[in-house]
């Protein structure tokens, strides 16, 4: 985990050091990244969500870098441990609850009642909404963890088959590992993106009640 933090920090510090008007390659990469995160926040939370930009960008960079560093052969993927993703998910969900109660007080409990519900449906709707709220951190944690673990398990199995197959047939699983490796790089990006988008959606739900 410290390696991930270190690599991400060094990348951003180096990229942000020059601050030239005509950006270098590294700087434009960093600017692209910041612009990307800004776009996500604007799309899902609106301009009032920019207050949470530091938190969201830290989360995004950490998940992205740990996903990518996990793809370096022989390294360890932090996000393939459900403990790590679970803590992230609980932190995000707890933050959205804190923000909601801070902004709306007890009225925030109205998130359990969808707008336009007739009164006689309330005993049914409140448990359903409660379950769908509680499912949020779990689906956040499980999604990231499962995607990372599954990818690495598949890669491991295919490499094992390559070694078991030897020269005669081993080229077949080996070519699959190359294709899947590309897919895994894409998944590393997409999973970081999804985690951050959902974080924004949950915090946005807490800000704008209904």
């Amino acid at each position, binding site marked *: 985990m410290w390696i991930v933090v270190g690599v991400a920090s060094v990348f951003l510090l180096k990229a942000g050091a020059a601050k030239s008007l005509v950006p270098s390659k590294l700087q434009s990469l960093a600017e*692209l990244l910041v*612009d*990307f995160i800004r*776009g*996500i926040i604007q*799309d899902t939370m609106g301009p009032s969500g920019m207050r949470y930009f530091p938190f969201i960008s830290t989360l995004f960079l950490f998940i992205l870098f740990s996903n990518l560093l996990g793809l370096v052969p022989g390294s360890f993927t932090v996000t393939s441990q459900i403990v790590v993703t679970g803590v992230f998910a609980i932190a995000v969900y707890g933050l959205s609850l804190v923000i909601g109660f801070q902004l709306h007080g007890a009225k925030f409990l109205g998130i359990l009642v969808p707008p336009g519900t007739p009164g006689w449906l309330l005993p049914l709707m409140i*448990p*359903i*909404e409660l*379950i*769908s709220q*509680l*499912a*949020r951190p*779990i*689906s956040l944690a*499980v*999604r990231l963890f*499962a*995607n990372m673990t599954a990818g690495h398990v598949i890669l491991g199995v295919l490499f094992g088959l390559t070694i078991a197959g030897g020269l005669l047939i081993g080229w077949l699983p080996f070519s699959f590992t190359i294709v899947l490796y590309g897919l895994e790089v*894409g998944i590393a*990006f*997409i*999973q970081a*993106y*999804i985690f951050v*988008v*959902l974080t924004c*959606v949950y915090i946005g739900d807490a800000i704008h009640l209904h």
Partner: protein
Amino acid sequence: MAPSQDPVFAGLGKAMRVGTDLLAALIVGGFLGWLVDSYVFDSTPWGVSVGLVLGLIAGIRNAYRAAQRWGA
């Protein structure tokens, strides 16, 4: 074009959300039902059954709401 508006990237992101949303709500529903069964009422098959049905509804509702959000 900003990558967050890239149709392929954003579309893949949306597609990968829905599956776990369905599953997670089902798990939570079943777990809550099991808690009620074992610690509150001692009503063994009923809590889990009702919890699973509620979890299923909640999961479908979650997925439906997510789809509505990006349909607009």
